[in-house]
């Protein structure tokens, strides 16, 4: 009983009106009529009551026959064939005058004559139409068709309820234009549960329950003595979305924090760089394929920038003959012009080079990172972007070695959700040893390549820093892991700026 009381206290005004009507009524139209509510309101109330275990809604489909446009008209004016017959009782009519004299539509002429001929109700003598004896009887008698129309005008009839002669009339009329139609209707009925039967007979008091607590109730104290309607706390409420940082920004922020926690300083620098900083200072040979137009975006105007003096001379020497690094260099001639070319930075390793060049021996050991944009001359597709985010890091430390490199990478990726990291031999012109960085995909259980790493070559470090010190370095892609996290398959969706997608995207929770 306590349950029932609770339920009744929690009833919504619509439910309050509907519930008493349920004793004795079981179909939607009946309930609607009794409550004087709108059908949608009753439907809502029924659904809520069903959730409360008061009733069960039974849904079915029925095929009903109803009058169509012409059917309604014929009900008033009579069927066109009857009207023709009626006109004929006043005398024979020329074929051409039938429409006018019988007051039917030109479109109804053929059907009418067809029906009448079939019943032998008329006789066509040359161009004249005459009524026959059977015709006169036919006129007086109410046809099956007329009976059906009349019945349908009183109520909708289920197709399967039709008697044989009604079925016959139905078939005839359905062949004709817009007289009757059948349509599928949803059938809603209810059945009260045991609890429902009790509830329907409960007295539902109006005065003591309140729906909302209002400011005026508080002011006047009117809330005292009222019972507040119990809510269904499980109810679905309309969706809202909030403003937020783009999900990429959330990921960038997290990644920055990882490096900051490990004692790294943030690097920054321009997106437009000379080839000198982006490539030459990193000992990328001038005929390296990565410098070609199809890999790197160059600027039309200003097409070239300035070289930093006196650094460029050291870099030139290192390329041509190794300079004072103990290396043989790449050989050949190093071109200043090629180094001056302006480009969109292809990696944030350019920031590492610039950072090292600004360091002094007394600053060591030092660690730097950046999470920033780089550019590749790629056409956009589901796997490729021309703007990407690179996670860059360097450790400038006389004691640095390959084990530390592996240590930093492992620490980072563990925080990114990839506890298994491996490095394997790779090749980059600016690192030696070089290592590809793979992580084990925790669900797919396969290795995925996420970046490059290594120790900067002496040919890179010595011209920039003045001394040879091992510099651990890595450049890792970010978009792949971010896509994985947000379950995005097409990489373009990261920067699609579909507001619905951004509004509904889950928060970065690593």
């Amino acid at each position, binding site marked *: 009983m306590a349950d029932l009381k609770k339920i009744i206290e929690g009833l919504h005004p619509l439910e309050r009106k509907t519930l008493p009507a349920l004793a004795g009524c079981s179909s939607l139209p009946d309930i609607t009529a009794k409550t004087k509510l709108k059908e949608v309101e009753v439907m809502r109330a029924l659904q809520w009551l069903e959730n409360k275990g008061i009733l069960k809604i039974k849904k079915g489909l029925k095929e009903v026959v109803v009058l169509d446009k012409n059917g309604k008209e014929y009900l008033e004016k009579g069927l066109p064939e009857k009207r023709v017959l009626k006109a004929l009782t006043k005398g024979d009519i020329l074929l051409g005058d039938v429409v006018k004299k019988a007051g039917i539509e030109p479109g109804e002429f053929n059907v009418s004559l067809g029906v009448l001929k079939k019943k032998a109700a008329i006789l066509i003598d040359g161009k004249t139409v005459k009524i026959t004896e059977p015709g006169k009887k036919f006129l007086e008698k109410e046809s099956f068709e007329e009976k059906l129309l009349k019945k349908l005008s009183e109520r909708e009839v289920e197709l399967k309820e039709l008697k044989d002669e009604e079925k016959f009339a139905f078939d005839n009329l359905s062949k004709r234009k817009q007289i009757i139609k059948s349509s599928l209707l949803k059938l809603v009925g209810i059945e009260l549960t045991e609890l429902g039967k009790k509830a329907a007979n409960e007295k539902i008091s109006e005065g003591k329950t309140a729906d909302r607590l209002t400011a005026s109730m508080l002011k006047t104290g009117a809330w005292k003595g009222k019972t507040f309607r119990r809510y269904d706390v499980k109810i679905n409420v309309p969706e809202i979305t909030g403003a937020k940082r783009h999900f990429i920004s959330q990921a960038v922020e997290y990644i920055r924090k990882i490096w900051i926690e490990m004692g790294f300083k943030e690097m920054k620098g321009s997106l437009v760089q000379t080839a000198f900083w982006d490539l030459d200072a990193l000992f990328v040979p001038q005929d390296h394929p990565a410098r070609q137009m199809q890999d790197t975006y160059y600027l039309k105007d200003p097409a070239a*920038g300035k070289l930093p003096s006196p650094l460029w001379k050291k870099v030139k020497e290192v390329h041509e003959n190794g300079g004072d690094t103990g290396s043989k260099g790449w050989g050949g001639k190093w071109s200043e012009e090629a180094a001056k070319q*302006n480009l969109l930075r292809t990696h944030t390793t350019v920031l590492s080079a610039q950072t090292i060049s600004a360091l002094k021996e007394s600053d060591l050991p030092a660690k730097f990172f950046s999470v920033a944009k780089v550019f590749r001359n790629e056409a956009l597709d589901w796997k490729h972007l021309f703007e990407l985010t690179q996670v860059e890091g360097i450790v400038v430390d006389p004691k640095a070695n390959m084990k530390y490199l592996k240590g930093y990478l492992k620490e980072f990726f563990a925080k990114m959700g990839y506890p298994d990291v491996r490095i394997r031999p790779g090749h980059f012109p600016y690192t030696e040893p070089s290592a590809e960085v793979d992580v084990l995909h925790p669900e797919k259980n396969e290795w995925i390549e996420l970046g490059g790493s290594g120790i900067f070559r002496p040919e890179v470090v010595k011209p920039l820093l003045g001394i040879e010190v091992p510099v651990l370095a890595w450049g890792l892609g970010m978009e792949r892991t971010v896509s994985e996290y947000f379950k995005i398959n097409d990489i373009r969706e990261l920067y699609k700026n579909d507001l*619905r997608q951004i509004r509904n995207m889950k928060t970065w929770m690593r």
Partner: protein
Amino acid sequence: MPSIKINKEVVEKLVGKKVPIDQLKDRISMLGTDLEGIEGNEISVEIFPNRPDLLSEQGLARALSSFIGAKTGLRKYRVGKSGEKVIIDKSVKDVRPFTACAIVKGLKFDDEKIKEIIQIQEKLHVTYGRNRKKCAIGVYPYEKIKPPIKFIAKKPGEIKFQPLEAFKEMTGLQILSQHPTGREYGYLLEGKDKFPIFVDSTNQVLSMPPIINSEQTGKITEKTTDVFVECSGFDFDVLHKCLNIIAAALADMGGKIYSMELSYPDRKVTTPNLEPVPMKFDTKYISRIIGVDFKESEIKKYLEMMGYGYEKGKALVPAYRADVMHPIDLAEDICIAYGYENLKEEIPKVATNAEEDKFYVFKDRIANIFVGLGILEVKTYHLTSKENQTKKMKSDISVIELANPNSKEYHVLRAWIIPSLMEVLAGNKHNEYPQHIFDIGTIFKKGKTDTGVEEADRLGVVLCNEKADFTEIKQVLDYLMKMLDVKYEIEETDNSSFIPGRAGRISVKGKNVAYVGEINPEVLTSWEMQMPVAALEINLTDLFEAIKK
């Protein structure tokens, strides 16, 4: 990166023993090559550009057999003296000044081996040879050639021979304009008065490098047993290295290498020279870089696993290795032999001070202020189209263009950020309003920097809803300035992107830092927008500087 196809059986024969497929897969990855796939007996392996010597079945098998311990240490390649000469005429000096040549005898060619030798040439051309520019390779049936051979440059009209895959004799010029290979590589000889050719003592043309060989004297068949090999280009050391790579591969196929005397106008050189090159190294240096305390004997073992020889304190670098230019390169190979997988990760306990970039922090705080106002962050590209930046905005702002864009949508660097946001709005007409969005990103204009391009980070905000107006956007501006505790001045300004009389220019401490206003309906129409927009663009770089002072 280039990849080569190798046959498992051939590799096993060269290695000298059967290798289980899983071991092969793992070893290929850990050797410093990348396994791409296996289909039946055919294995695709990606070769990094620093190891041209691995671009053949023979080269890769050689490296693998040392790496898995089947045949370690330096391979000795004997070079006999052929006594034959190649005379380099001074006329080639301005076209293609150098060549390195060898003869390899006693080869048994079959269909597979002919394909293999073509693969080696092609892969070396594309990679180490930089598409034949740096180095072009020719391999010829020696029995058809009468030495001495001459490397000489002649006027293209005077050069006449039947090139491979042609049915008639052609002149140098005809080859460049009509022959498919000539058309592909013709640019390498463009503008030259004379083209280089190899001819034999009977004046038969062997080839016209770097384009094509002769049909008569430049085609290997199943009857060929001895070959003449030449590499031509601009850097003798590069050519010699390339020749050594090919000679070693041919020797691994069962051939015997013979040297030739190259007679340059000013000197005589003998090639190939397959003697290893000694390189001094310091065990401590190697140990320090890798982080493992190696004994001398361990270093020796690891060097030998990587195909080097060892002599007290020195590595004997095989003559086919093109990438060893500093002891650091030995360190990498020793590290590979030791196994990257065996390195135990460590994080050193060194204290360093972390530091966020102050400007980044500033931008981050501003972004959070906007989020607090219910404005959503979007992320737009730096590259866009000139039309979006100018015509669609009724603006004549100048933008920096890319020299080599690959699409019309993304061919300039943006000069302001509101157009990027307009593009977002235009693409979201089907989504729920109001649409209040912001983005912080870089803009580009010409300036006095080392590159001639000045970059600034700007914040753009657009408010788009039925009632978006000046008041609404100015409230946003006022709130931001209040939160930053900054006083600003505002003046009416003419800006054709905005409704006249509804645009303001904002300055802080006398410096223009922002503009604000209602977007001109003509602009909205050009974006096919049917909702009013009020916009704000702030130069955060300048605002940051102004506040700091």
